[in-house]
């Protein structure tokens, strides 16, 4: 029976067979396979026959059946030809040692730079992205609109948590439960809150005790589903009931190791918190890795936070786990509806919430118009850009040097063409050479990365492991090397291969004007990038120095903080008296805020309801619905003296006025200005339901980093406030004695707490960690950029010298000195550098201006910065130029 459609073996498999099979076996094997196919078709059906055929074709992929390259083929890329190219490339590398070294060093530096930055960027992007159901996790942000002010933050509106800093309002505290929320937002599977203890500026570790062992640890509070949603590995206990009730605590392996013999041992044991509350350890989790933006050594149940602990950070996160198919926009709408139902309709302040993927929170760290905006992400982008630029600079070098050499290579090209090379062959050959060099370079940079990784980790504050064992790393390396090789080799390959053999061999060959212009513009581009990098370096490091050296308006030397905890507050007077008698201690005072980083602002649209209405609001004589964001602090009598603040008008707090502890306020000049007061001394002002009078005006001083402008400040004396810090001034040069004395006194007065302290100046410097890293990185980049560009210039000079040997010969015969010729050459190249400066300066100026916008107090972008960058590029280029020229034997 004949069918219209006769089944045939799979076509692709046949093609594959024909492609690889040795010609003398092809007919036989194909025939056998065909016969077998017919046989299988008859006995086992079409599908089986086809599968069997494919299997056999793959099975024939064996040495005996595969076509050997040596077979009589007309393909020009035969093995021997490739070997010839390889040998030629190697000979070229070896013969021209200095060129090859410049190339390889330049490329390797650029690649190392790239690799480091990619490692860093990867690490940044990996933060918070290790959770298995990460795709379903979202974090809440709130947008607060009040008049013209729009603020955004990753904090949960008080309406959802009812979290309050005010002890008196504790009864009102309640959190929205997942069950309550589910009726509004059915897509929410789970939710958890998360907040650290005190946020900076108070931020301090909390004390734990088991038996006689006491230690401070940093930790947080979280909802009971926390461990069910986020992948923090549990080593002992159960994720489900890690935080199931008010007395639960989960601790890290480190903390378990400190108090107990093993993690298993810790389960069910009781642990004393701040000498007040006993918690039961329900779970031990693996130490939190550097790839988590949340870092904690213990977690306490959220209910416990609401009911029995002191105020936690107002910046509490709410993390949702949504169902697989949830539409985020829809969930946002539902959440907002829910929020509206709880909100006071007449409130002028409007709060809305939004969700962003949990893993994005770290990189989208800042807010614009109340919506999350790329914060750290910008740095990731900038540095990736810079890495690519540096690589491009290195590639340009390669192109320049390769073309410079091409004078010599041109004859080779001519001969090859005459012998019968096609253009295609030559392109292949040149690409092959550049790939060879770029692979050598990448090997060098892999070794460099391996060696420098610890240094880099130190510099960038990262814990990146060596990626040498990851297959993806090697894939990336090969991709990078191939990419670089192709880019770098493109110009010589495409240009040299077009040369006309007859003209080359006659010696009538010169570079066309367009080619020379192309190379010059490459150098201009290179130098423009380098000069821009230098400008950035100068600006960033100057700003950083400015920040560190600016007179903040107070004295930050020799000041030490102690956290006000345990018996330190009730026995403060005794502590002060004892401490002052000890050697090395000059002064003692206290403050509710760390003076170098006051973060708390009242009466501002921060979404914390209780700071701008009711008792906490700040009112003053003549206030009419004005809203002024005050930074409040309660301090001791000696605060002004210990900080060495200047009083502009009126007087300092003093014990000799009986009324000072109940009635006196001091404000700063900025406050007077913003309140619009005239003759402020003696006018009444009230804060925290305490009414008093202004006794003095402080000269403005910086209460936080220079990123923010000086804000109105209000201070009063309260030597009994239960939170804050004790500030101790040590005698200059007696730091060691002073600290020893402090420890003795602390052990005596406050025995239940371990002695811990911080230096104010060190804490202040920590606020500029990011700027410091950026300074270091830009320094390195600028040096690299300049170095690689100079290599490029060197190449160009060598090229020019070689091209014009005859011209210079004639000039010398006619009486020119070496200096004349050097000047002649210098002029041409100086023009290039000046041109690149003209291109770079406006760009760099614009970007640095943008960067400086992040600071309220900043350096001027004055002309000398640009002049310095341009001049240094010029001088460096000139120096190496001269050096190079005099080295030549003319």
């Amino acid at each position, binding site marked *: 029976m004949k069918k219209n459609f006769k089944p045939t073996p799979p076509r692709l498999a046949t093609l594959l067979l024909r492609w690889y099979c040795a010609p003398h076996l092809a*007919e*036989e*094997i*194909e*025939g*056998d*396979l*065909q*016969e*077998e196919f*017919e*046989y299988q078709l008859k006995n086992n059906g079409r599908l089986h026959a086809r599968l069997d055929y494919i*299997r*056999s074709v793959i*099975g*024939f992929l*064996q040495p*005996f*059946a595969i076509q050997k390259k040596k077979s009589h083929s007309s393909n020009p890329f035969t093995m021997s030809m490739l070997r010839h190219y390889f040998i030629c490339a190697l000979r070229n590398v070896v013969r021209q040692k200095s060129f090859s070294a410049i190339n390889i060093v330049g490329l390797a530096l650029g690649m190392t730079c790239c690799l480091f930055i990619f490692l860093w960027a990867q690490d940044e992007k990996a933060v918070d992205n290790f959770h298995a159901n990460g795709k379903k996790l979202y974090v809440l942000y709130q947008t607060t609109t009040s008049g013209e002010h729009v603020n955004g933050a990753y904090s949960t509106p008080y309406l959802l948590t009812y979290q309050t800093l005010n002890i008196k309002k504790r009864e009102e505290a309640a959190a929205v439960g997942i069950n309550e929320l589910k009726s509004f937002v059915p897509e929410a599977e789970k939710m958890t809150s998360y907040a650290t203890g005190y946020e900076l500026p108070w931020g301090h570790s909390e004390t734990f005790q088991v038996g006689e062992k006491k230690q401070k640890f940093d930790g947080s509070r979280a909802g009971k589903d926390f461990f069910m949603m986020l992948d923090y590995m549990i080593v002992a206990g159960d994720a489900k009931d890690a935080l199931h009730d008010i007395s639960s605590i989960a601790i890290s392996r480190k903390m378990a190791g400190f108090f107990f013999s093993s993690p298993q041992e810790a389960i069910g044991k009781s642990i004393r918190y701040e000498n007040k509350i006993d918690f039961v350890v329900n779970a031990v989790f693996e130490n939190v890795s550097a790839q988590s933006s949340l870092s904690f050594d213990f977690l306490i149940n959220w209910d416990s936070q609401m009911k029995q602990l002191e105020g936690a950070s107002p910046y509490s996160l709410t993390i949702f786990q949504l169902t697989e198919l949830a539409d985020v926009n829809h969930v946002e709408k539902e959440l907002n509806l829910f929020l509206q139902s709880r909100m006071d309709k007449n409130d002028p302040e409007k709060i809305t919430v939004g969700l962003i993927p949990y893993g994005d929170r770290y990189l989208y760290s800042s807010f614009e118009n109340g919506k999350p905006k790329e914060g750290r992400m910008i740095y990731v982008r900038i540095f990736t850009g810079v890495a690519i630029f540096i690589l491009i600079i290195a590639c340009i070098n390669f192109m320049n040097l390769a073309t410079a050499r091409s004078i010599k290579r041109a004859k080779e090209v001519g001969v090859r063409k005459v012998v019968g090379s096609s253009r295609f062959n030559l392109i292949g050959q040149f690409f092959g050479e550049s790939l060879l060099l770029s692979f050598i370079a990448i090997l060098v940079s892999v070794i460099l990365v391996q060696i420098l990784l610890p240094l880099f980790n130190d510099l960038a504050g990262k814990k990146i492991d060596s990626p040498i064992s990851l297959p993806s790393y090697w894939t990336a390396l090969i991709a990078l090397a191939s990419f670089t090789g192709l880019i770098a080799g493109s110009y010589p390959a495409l240009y040299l291969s077009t040369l006309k053999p007859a003209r080359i061999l006659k010696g009538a060959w010169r570079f066309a004007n367009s080619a020379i212009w192309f190379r010059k513009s490459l150098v201009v581009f290179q130098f423009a990038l380098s000069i821009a990098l230098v400008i950035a370096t100068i600006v960033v490091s100057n700003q950083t120095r400015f920040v560190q050296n600016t007179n903040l308006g107070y004295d930050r030397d020799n000041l030490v903080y102690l956290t006000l905890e345990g018996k330190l507050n009730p026995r403060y007077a005794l502590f002060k008296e004892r401490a002052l008698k000890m050697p090395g201690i000059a002064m003692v005072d206290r403050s509710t805020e760390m003076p170098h980083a006051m973060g708390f602002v009242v009466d501002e649209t921060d979404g914390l309801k209780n700071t701008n209405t009711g008792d906490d609001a700040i009112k003053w004589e003549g206030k009419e619905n004005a809203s002024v964001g005050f930074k409040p602090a309660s301090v001791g009598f000696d605060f002004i003296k210990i900080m060495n603040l200047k009083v502009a008008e009126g007087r300092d707090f003093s014990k000799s006025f009986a009324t000072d502890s109940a009635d006196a306020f001091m404000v700063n000049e900025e406050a007077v200005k913003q309140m619009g007061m005239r003759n402020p001394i003696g006018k009444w002002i009230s804060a925290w339901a305490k009414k008093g009078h202004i006794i003095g005006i402080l000269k403005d001083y910086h209460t936080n980093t220079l990123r923010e402008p000086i804000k109105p400040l209000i201070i009063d004396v309260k030597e009994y406030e239960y939170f804050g810090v004790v500030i101790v001034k040590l005698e200059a040069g007696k730091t060691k004695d002073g600290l020893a004395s402090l420890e003795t006194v602390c052990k005596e007065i406050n025995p239940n707490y371990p002695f811990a302290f911080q230096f104010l100046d060190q804490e202040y410097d920590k606020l500029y960690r990011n700027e410091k890293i950026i300074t270091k990185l830009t320094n390195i980049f600028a040096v690299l950029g300049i170095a690689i560009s100079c290599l490029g210039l060197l190449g160009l000079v060598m090229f020019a010298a070689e091209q014009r040997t005859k011209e210079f010969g004639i000039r010398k015969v006619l009486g020119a000195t070496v200096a004349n010729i050097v000047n002649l050459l210098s002029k041409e190249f100086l023009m290039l550098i000046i041109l690149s400066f003209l291109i770079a300066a406006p760009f760099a100026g614009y970007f640095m201006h943008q960067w400086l916008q992040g600071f309220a107090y900043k350096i001027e972008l004055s002309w000398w910065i640009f002049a310095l960058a341009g001049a240094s590029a010029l001088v460096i280029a000139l120096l190496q130029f001269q050096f190079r020229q005099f080295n030549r034997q003319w």
Partner: protein
Amino acid sequence: MKRVYLGEFEELVLLIVAMLGDDAYGVKITHDIIQQTNRSVRLNQVHASLNRLEDKGMIISKVGDPTAERGGRRKRIFTITVFGQQTLKEMKEVRAHLWSLLPSALKIVAG
């Protein structure tokens, strides 16, 4: 004389080639092995084996006639060489000799 070793599978293929006479080519050999020994054998294994045997000089090949079921392609017909026959014979003798040396009890069990 330089000894040439034969693998177990090679020996099998060689025997089948000898058995099939003028009709020994890839597919036929494969099917015969399957039939006679109940082993699952694939075409490519047989081809590899035939190649090795040819390299060792046990068999020679010539190109046969095209047939319709092969899509008009020619077969390669293998025939055993004298050297191949000799090797088979030697192997059989060695085995027979070894068998004769077995203790009698085992001989009964095995045979």
